[in-house]
């Protein structure tokens, strides 16, 4: 809810023009009324309408500036005749009226050009820029006519006003790393794979990785879903990365690395968050040292995500891209509190990106880690992956063994499918809720592939007790639950079925319920503020902890989440840090970042919007998967990715839903 003077946002018609301020009708949307802690917004204008927060807005100039911003920002576009010339004509005509030289015929031309842009532009930005302009011309006609009739400049024509614009798209907005998704898909469609990769790497250095193992929240907010089904966004990311790798190009970085500025930042942890921080800091000419406890780089994606989902040679390419910028990596080094005290003095800033690498307990009776056969998911996957990917340690061989995993998320899926590959006799996944929920928590593909490979899923169940003989696990007792619908329509309740329990003889219990952060490295006297779930607290915008110069991002900040979430946080943190080390320790956000946060709060995607100008019914492409018989006893990559033909068909489904939003303050 926002207090507005006037709004046509998302089709609402709020007009408080003649009402006293206390009788103003409110907007139903979370509009950016307060730009930042220093400034209130005067107006917000975007693809879907316009909102004025006070009376004192020069609507003619507002319209002109919006058209001007479209001109300025059209480097994102300029790709079609109506957008290219139409945008310029809109601006020239509006400015002519605003400076007091317009004619009535100009208004007619504005409407005509607007219509052509709406009907024929290539991307949504060209189609939607006229929308709020037409709204203003309709509802504030007298303001425009005043400038024309009296040949005078609009009321604030020469006044200094800040107009802040931002290009976005529903998918970009939904992506925690705010990847320029229409940009990289256009690169595929145009067969300009280097451009595609550069578009990705602007905000996401791990293109190979997030072209494979991203849970793609973007696809939940793809406008194409309003028409038929969402674009297969995630897999199209592989094309650019594969092009670079297949043709052995030098890395296509989004910008040239700046020369060293003599500032040093230390990053703890070489997982997705650490790598991302290092990448964007290094691009800015900052010297980065990354400390890693494990003997290998990559964090959980390296030692957690199995080879068949994320081949290490591909991930190593992403890591190589970071190394290519001159980042120093120090492996086999567990950072202690003493070292942290030292780092704080030595470096201009410190980033903690240690992830969450402690397996949580399942909370059953007799759950004692010393029992042989009790094996944390993280430790189990470490051993599997260190051997399979790097030949470090020992091969996991589960021949003849029965394995029970308790979980329901991605990690537990990795555990059970790795157990199948380690030749276990029987692999059982225990999950408290139902099939639908496990699919929602992971992906349909992941669940389906696990079932295909022979994992037995037991739903509505939980381990109640571990039974051991001389500290060797022998069997487990289970409780059975039923889901009782909530009469008030809330989430169904799990209720234990009395007498419904059962037991199984097992060799291993692998808890994969969740992970927590190992934060022994934090000096106690720092007294860093923590969240209620024992992760490091930041404000979620600049990622500085309660201690000056100490930043945190990724799972150790957010709790166990996705790779893309870690990347998004770290990208933002790197941007903040790069300014922090250069401007005497001030924490700032750029206008672009402020707008990014406003837009995410408003949500760019509109589930109810009717899509026009596109033919529905073009099928979403599905990439080939390795047959279960060929894959289940080895580490071959399961998802073979799109063929070129499939990729091009899929890229053609993207509607290029770029939008431009602007705040005046």
């Amino acid at each position, binding site marked *: 809810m926002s207090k507005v003077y006037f709004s046509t946002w998302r089709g609402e018609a709020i007009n408080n023009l003649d009402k006293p301020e206390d009788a103003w009708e409110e907007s139903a949307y979370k509009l950016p009324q307060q730009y930042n802690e220093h400034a209130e917004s005067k107006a917000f204008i975007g693809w879907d309408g316009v909102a004025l927060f006070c009376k004192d807005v020069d609507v003619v100039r507002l319209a002109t500036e919006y058209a001007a911003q*479209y*001109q300025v920002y*059209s*480097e*994102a*576009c*300029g*790709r*079609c*005749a*109506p*957008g*290219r*010339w*139409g*945008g*310029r*004509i809109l601006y*020239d005509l509006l400015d002519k009226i605003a400076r007091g030289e317009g004619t009535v015929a100009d208004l007619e*031309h504005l409407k*005509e*050009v607007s219509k*052509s842009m709406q*009907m*024929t*532009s*290539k991307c949504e930005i060209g189609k939607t820029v006229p929308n709020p302009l037409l709204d203003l011309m309709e509802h504030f006609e007298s303001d425009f006519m005043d400038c024309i009739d009296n040949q005078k400049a609009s009321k604030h024509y020469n006044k200094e006003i800040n107009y802040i614009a931002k290009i976005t798209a529903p998918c970009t907005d939904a992506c925690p790393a705010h990847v320029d998704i229409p940009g990289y898909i256009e690169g595929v*469609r*145009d*067969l*300009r794979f280097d*451009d595609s990769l550069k578009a990705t790497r602007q905000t996401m250095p791990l293109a190979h990785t997030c072209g494979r193992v991203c849970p793609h929240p973007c696809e939940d907010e793809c406008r194409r879903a309003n028409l038929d089904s969402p674009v297969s966004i995630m897999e199209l990311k592989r094309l650019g990365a594969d092009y670079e790798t*297949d*043709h*052995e*190009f030098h890395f296509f970085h989004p910008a040239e690395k700046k020369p060293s500025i003599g500032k040093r930042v230390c990053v703890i942890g070489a997982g997705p968050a650490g790598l991302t921080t290092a990448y964007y800091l290094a691009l800015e000419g900052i010297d980065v040292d990354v400390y890693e406890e494990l003997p290998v780089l990559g964090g959980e994606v390296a030692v957690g995500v199995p080879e068949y989902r994320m081949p290490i040679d591909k991930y190593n390419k992403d890591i190589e891209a970071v190394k290519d910028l001159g980042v120093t990596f120090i492996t086999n080094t567990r950072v202690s509190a003493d070292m942290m005290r030292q780092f704080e003095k030595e470096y201009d800033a410190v980033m903690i990106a240690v992830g969450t690498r402690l397996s949580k307990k399942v909370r059953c009776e007799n759950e004692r880690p010393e029992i042989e056969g009790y094996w944390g998911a993280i430790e189990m996957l470490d051993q599997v992956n260190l051997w399979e990917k790097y030949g470090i340690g020992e091969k996991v061989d589960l021949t003849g063994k029965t394995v029970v995993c308790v979980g329901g998320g991605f990690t537990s899926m990795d555990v059970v499918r790795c157990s199948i590959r380690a030749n276990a006799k029987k692999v059982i996944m225990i999950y408290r809720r139902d099939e639908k929920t496990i699919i929602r928590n992971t992906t349909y593909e992941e669940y389906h592939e696990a079932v295909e490979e022979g994992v037995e899923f037991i739903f509505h169940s939980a381990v109640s007790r571990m039974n051991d003989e001389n500290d060797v696990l022998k069997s487990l007792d289970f409780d059975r639950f039923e889901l009782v619908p909530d009469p008030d329509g809330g989430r169904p309740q799990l209720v234990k079925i009395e007498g419904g329990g059962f037991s199984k003889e097992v060799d291993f219990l692998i808890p994969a319920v969740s992970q927590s952060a190992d934060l022994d490295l934090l000096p106690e006297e720092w007294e860093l503020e923590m969240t209620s779930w024992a992760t490091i607290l930041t404000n979620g915008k600049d990622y500085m902890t309660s201690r000056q110069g100490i930043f945190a991002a990724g799972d150790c900040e957010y709790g166990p989440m996705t790779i893309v979430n870690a990347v998004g946080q770290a990208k933002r943190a790197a941007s903040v840090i790069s300014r922090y080390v250069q401007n005497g320790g001030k924490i700032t956000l750029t206008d672009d970042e402020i707008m990014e946060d406003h837009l995410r709060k408003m949500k760019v995607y509109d589930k109810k919007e*009717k899509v*026009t*100008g*596109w*033919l*529905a*019914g*073009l099928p979403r492409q599905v990439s*080939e998967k390795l047959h279960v018989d060929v894959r289940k006893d080895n580490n071959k990559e399961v998802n*073979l990715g799109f*063929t*070129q*033909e499939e*990729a*091009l*068909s899929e890229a*053609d489904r993207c509607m290029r839903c770029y939008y431009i939003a602007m705040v005046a303050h």
Partner: protein
Amino acid sequence: MITFTIDGRHVTAAKGETILNVARREGIYIPTMCYLSKTTPCASCRMCVVEAEGVEGFVLSCQTPPTEGLVVNTHSDLLQDERVNIMRMYDVNHPLECGVCDKSGECDLQNKTLEFGIDRQHFSARDQIRDIKEWGRIHYDPSLCILCEKCVHVCNEIIGDDAIEVQFGGYKSTIIPKNSEQLDCTFCGECIAVCPVGALVSSEFQYRANAWELSRIPATCAHCSSGCALEYEVKTSGAASAGEERIFRVSNNFEYTTLCGAGRFHFDFGADISEGSADISEAVQAIQACDAIRFSSLITNEEALILQQLKERLGIKLYNEEARHFQEFMHAYARKSGQLHYSATLEDIKQSDAIIMIGSRISTDNPGVRYAITEAARHNGAKVSYMHPLEDVLLHNTMTQFVKYEVGTEEGVIALLAQELLKNANVNTEDKAVLDQLDEGYLSAESNVGEEEIADMMASFLRSKKRTFIVGSDVISHEQRENIAKLVGLIDAYSDFKVMVVPKHVNTLGVSLICDLDAEAGGKSVGYNAQGDFIIASSGVRHMSVPALNQQEGTFVSINKQVLPTNVALGFSGHTLNDVASCLGLSQKETIDYTRQLPEGKGFQRIAFDTLENFYDPLGKDRRGYCLQSIATNEADSVLNDVEELPEFNGTVVYHCNPVLQFNSYTASGADEEERALIGSPQFAIAAKISDGDSVEMTLGQHVIRRYFRVDNTLKGTVALNPTFDLPLGAFDGQYRFEKVKIMKVGS
């Protein structure tokens, strides 16, 4: 198949066809400004929007495949209004300089402005000052540019240079060289060809003629074996004055075909009769007195047949080492493949998703093959293994694997490939035994091609469905060509690879099919477009001039095994080979009377020259000449030989290889010092004790050649590139292309 309706007509679409594709096939007109048939849609002009029932708003026909039962309307008042508005926008600030613009008369903007009745500037926007760019042979005027993006698409998707891009900036958008200030490309000029307006024009042609003054002569390019269709544009009317009849430019049907820069820019090779003015009687006497005619493959099929008939009539020898090697190669090949001709065409390469290219620096040897590989790489994501002793930076963005083998070891490398490709094939037991018994360790060690590289190659081909194996002239000219040919023939017959054997010259294939070639020349010789004691030629030092390939009618056999007609673009007032032959008792009046007599046993047909068509139809079907019939052979008596010792090339070695745009003396006029330079890696410079910019003297067999030396940092190893285009026709033509060289610095 999808059934749907366009303008009330029931139509069907195949997989991959868009609404626009189907409309064009059905003859239904939808206007476009940016659509180019041979590339992916640029989708920038938005004029091809159509209405579809049940869909609110317009649908972009160039990019949208139809759905079952869709009802499409291509014309309505609403569509017309928007198309008119798009044209009005295109006309905003477009300079009114049609009077001097090169494109006037063949300009899409002019045509569409007229078609949509735009007779005044309806909209206006502030004009902007834009600098004209001179990019070598290419002149770019951004104020004329409509940003259709055709040039960018064609450069990336068809050529592979990827040398230009759109600098995005809304109204300020412009075309710029990619990754450099100055345009760095192979100057194929395809961007000029596809430009719908006068923004990209040929610097040489600019302001020289108007489109309507030029007559178009459909012909076949004479520079390499791709046999590209082109039109020589000759000024015969308007401002032309007597003696001014010249070729002003070359154009191509860019919608479907592609030309390289040699074809487009090197058209000025007509023979001047004053340079070889001997009387025809001297030529007749020389032939009567000679033991052999030495000739090159830069001749038509008809000329080849005349030479063959002279051989038969006069009992003289025919000597053309280059074509003879090709002939020997294909003969040995046919005995294993069971077919007289190799199986693949350029179209097969374009459709491929897996390609092995071995034994040619293909991007300069045969640009047509390079472009086909580029298309496969871009459009199909083809995995391309390029195997050669020398790096080629032009193939960087098309090849997915570079396999570097040692000079001279082609036989060993192809044997290793054959072993892998035929491991599950049903080849006969003797050949199987030879393949099974290969000394892999030795071959790998000598050729430097490891088991792992071949395994990587096979892994990258795993998902491919259409595969092509291309061999070039390094193997055709190799001493072990016959055994290599057998290996390749087996691959053609028994693996899922189609095979192409790249002929070196424009008519190597035709000559090899028509002439019985002798292994020795001996004694006195007459050169026909080649060296000899008496030289009859259309270029270079000669006794008697004959017409060049743009001055005569006749046919070539292209790499596609297609018999292609070419025509007279320029007049020639002297005598032809047929005139000489007539004096020696051959009976046909015109050279093209021999077209009907080309040997049927080799796949030729008894078709008269004048009935041969020479065009592409509006949907892009090639209607030029005819294709050779495939001929089965049943000489299964040859046995694969063991691959024994592989040759070694130590020390400094040169590779006879031309720079881009250059092939032979027909392309050589106006070549600059850079093009004539010997190009080597920094290591080569050290090994030969020379440095960048030095003048060097090379001793190569009987030839002593002086060149200027250039270091190319993209090359590695001790092999340098030595151009041959500026040497007399036929020099180094038939021999193995790598040669040990003595090199001496003679100046700097």
